[in-house]
């Protein structure tokens, strides 16, 4: 129990991460995959931020008060930039999904594979 009590936060984050992971690999719908990727990504952020936390500490904004325990600012910086970069790359993903739908009329990957295989067969015949 004492060991579990020390790392409970990390275990919960791992559970969350695996829900995202499952969504990415099990679901065929591309928008669903992107949502799963967002969940995965956010739980990685939580893992980082959890590591920077100090018990009874405070946010890393220096004050004159006697408070000396500040949370580690380094993971905060890494994750802050990662969030903005994450939304920018997610936008690229959505843009590609829109183009796939415009070209093939579906965003389900099994249907997409069928269409592409059919096109390849046509190409082989001709």
């Amino acid at each position, binding site marked *: 129990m004492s060991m579990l009590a020390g790392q409970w936060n990390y275990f919960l984050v791992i559970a969350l991460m695996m829900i995202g992971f499952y969504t990415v690999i099990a679901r065929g719908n591309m928008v669903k995959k992107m949502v799963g990727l967002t969940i995965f990504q956010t739980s990685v952020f939580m893992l980082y931020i959890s590591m920077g936390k100090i018990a009874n500490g405070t*946010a890393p*904004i220096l004050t004159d008060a006697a408070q000396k325990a500040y949370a580690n600012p380094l993971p905060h910086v890494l994750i*802050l*930039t990662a*969030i*903005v970069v994450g939304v*920018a790359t997610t*936008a690229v993903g*959505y*843009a590609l999904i*829109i183009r796939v739908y*415009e070209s093939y009329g579906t965003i389900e990957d099994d249907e997409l594979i069928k269409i592409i295989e059919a096109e390849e067969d046509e190409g082989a015949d001709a």
Partner: protein
Amino acid sequence: MQDDPVIRVVAKVMIPTVMLFALYVQFHGDYGPGGGFQAGVIFAAAFVLNAMIFGLNRGRHVWPANLNLLAVCAGVLLYGLTGVASMLLGENYLDYDVLGATPQAGQHIGILLVEFGVGLTVASVMVALFFTFAGRMTHNRLLDRMEAQDKDAKRGAAKQAPKKRSRT
């Protein structure tokens, strides 16, 4: 939604407030939570709200796409050139100590410039993303209309000259 007076009036009050808050977050980032990334996103949210409520065309009118692209590049350039400036003054790239009279003043100036560059880039990138996605809808609608017209025209042409493409 565009004709609802409540939404229009609330938006007119909200949009300047959101922009002012974004500027506060941008320039107060040294002392409290905030900085270029957050301010950029909040500033972009004001433009997105404007475009959603008053229509895409008016949104474009307020902030033209060409200007927006320039702003995307200007932000990155401002960041990079701040580093070059400190290099020209005899320090390492992105070491702001030499930008001001004292190292601390230099750091203040450097951080202000760099954060402004980040904010400019993020704000204009988010606006560009929104307008590109939303513009695709109108684009597709236009294409559908053109396709329908093409089909009508083809049908008319097919009636007049039914055997046009015999050798292919």
